[in-house]
């Protein structure tokens, strides 16, 4: 059962990482324009280099 000593902290860390990532996406306005973002990926405009 000593494996629990590693597994529980690891599972908590992974879950915590996902939570932190979600909080980051909310804070950086990534849900502002879901429809537009899903379409922009189809545009060829900035395929060669990123938008300056």
């Amino acid at each position, binding site marked *: 059962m000593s494996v629990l000593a590693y597994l529980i902290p690891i599972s908590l860390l992974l879950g915590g990482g996902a*939570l932190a990532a979600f909080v980051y996406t909310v804070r950086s*306005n990534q*849900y502002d324009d879901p429809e537009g973002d899903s379409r922009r990926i189809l*545009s060829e405009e900035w395929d060669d280099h990123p938008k300056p």
Partner: protein
Amino acid sequence: MTAQMRPAMAVCPGCVAASTEAVETAPTEAVETAPTEARLALSLPTIHCQACISKVERGLNDHPGIHSARVNLTLKRALIEADPEVRADDLIPVLADLGFEAHELDLATLAATQSDRAGRDLLMRLAVAGFASMNVMLLSVSVWSGASDATRDMFHWISAAIAFPAVIFAGKPFFTNAWSALRVGRLNMDVPIVLALVLALVTSLWETSLSGDHAYFDAALTLTFLLLAGRYLDYRTRAVARSAAEELAALEVPRAIRMEDDTEVEVPVADLAYGDLILVRPGGRMPVDGVIATGESELDRSLLTGETLPVFAAPGTQVSAGEVNLTGPLVVRAEAVGEDTSLHRMADLVAIAESGRSRYTSLADSAAKLYAPGVHILSALAFVGWYLYTFDLRMALNIAAAVLIITCPCALGLAVPAVTTAASGRLFKKGMLIKHSTALERLAGVDTVVFDKTGTLTTGTPQLENLEVFTRAELEIALALAEGSSHPLSRALTAAARTAGIAPADVTDLQERPGFGTQGQYMGRTVRLGRAAWLGADQGSQTAAWLDTGEGAAPRGFLFHDALRPGAAEAVAQLHAAGKEVLLISGDTTAAVEDLAQRLGIQKWLAEALPEDKAERIQSLSDRGHKVLMVGDGLNDTAALTAAHVSISPASALDAARVASDIVLLGQDLEPIAEACVVASKATKRIRENFRIATLYNVIAVPLAIAGFATPLIAALAMSSSSITVSLNALRLK
């Protein structure tokens, strides 16, 4: 009547809600860079694909003076940062050349939507509760499947370490709501929730410290998560309606043209002061109350009084904010601005009517009133009973906690929001905006529908009705004269004559006399088309334009009636078919109202009603036990809209009327009204069903809990299955 009506706004409600936090950082940036940069917003109702995005952004970025332009497809908006001298009026033609319709949005009005922190806050709490409950549930599964002794204790301690901070953070909305209710000595749905959360956590911690079997950490967290999900749904539904309503308001950019030493300066309406001279162009709306200083024209007062007949205006005529100038430019001396205008005085009437509205208690509140005391009494009885039976405080407390958790209104918290979200989403697609949270419940009980006439059942645009009584020669002259004016009657006459295949006669020296009509020379005679008084004719009760062919004969009148709004006849017929009583109450003349009532088959009508009369009539209907739905658009309807049980106004209504009503119709069509009543009664039926399902679960689970058989596993199962059933039942509405 010229307001934009754009059914294109009916986009998916989810997308609109998710993006109400658009450009969160905008206001602060604007302050820092204010001297060198202006921010503009344009509404683009016709964009729909990635090609449109690229085209609009490229087109705008190529325009001189623009620093950056970004399109938001979800909101169908473009946000532009540019040099301060760039105006939205310069950009609208640029977009029109690219093939896109664009309207300016007032950023000050939109700012209210952008600073929407509450939704984001709720989402964050929901995420924390979800994360914590998943982890604790995993640990609990091992306990339920047989972990014992030291392992079980360790799992319980880890669960406690996750659950305490998570519930304290995520449950904050419940704690504050419950506290504000308790402080004034009332009970609401949040009081049993908070009590259950606190008792579950405290007894579980006590049990854990004594190496006990049962801990309810997972139940406490799942409870928080499901209840927050209900709260978030509820919030999102209202946020969608609010942001769409704000967009409607933002389309009316409040600007006026002030005359300063004979130069025209465009200023915000808020900056106007008493005594200012304001230029109002034909087609423009009066920004203030005042007196006409120079100019002659006609005024459309239909939004204020319901009259369809335009009124002659000359220097000295009193004008009120909201009236529309029809023909000639007018200079108005402001006598009352902002809060003092007659538009705002109407607020007194609305405040009186409001007192009737607040009497309505929502289904959820009335359920809570029965529920909260019942739960507390049950749990207290279980505690006292078991304590007297065993004199074991620990066991009695455990059972009381189990009762509270199982009866906790988890499904009840989801029952209403899940249904209203589904129903509002469906009506939103049909072009109806549910602004008030209890509007659907109230709409379901409606048995009487009161319509306003001008602007509601009719579009407010005139239609020629007696084209055939004129000779071709007369029509040719009339058409030539009508084409020289942009007056609504002239335009209606032009359209009707053109469809009849008439070509204009060769009239020369065409000139418009604002406020009177147009005149010209035809074969050496002076021909005139205009108001009755100008041509010496007798003005009847019907809207008319008079033609004098200069041959010495008496002038003859072109008669007009108001065009019906699309779907008006169908809506009235469907409401009749559904067994509802339909009434027509208007401020217009008796003849006009009677004519319309006959056309639509409405038996009961009331004409020449003052705003007070409308509100009183609705009040007396309510006193007789009727549930009244008021549909109206004008300023004269605002008091009636507020007095009614529930109210609807079209998007073309004045802002004041839209604010006073519970539901806004985004499209031109009136037909969705009848369907909305059907959807509303279905939704209310589902809500009641959901309450019954939740009660049924309690009836089964509560005896188990009181008898002491409830384990954390049973609590978790009962709670999740009732929540899932309730949500699925709500989804059946789609």
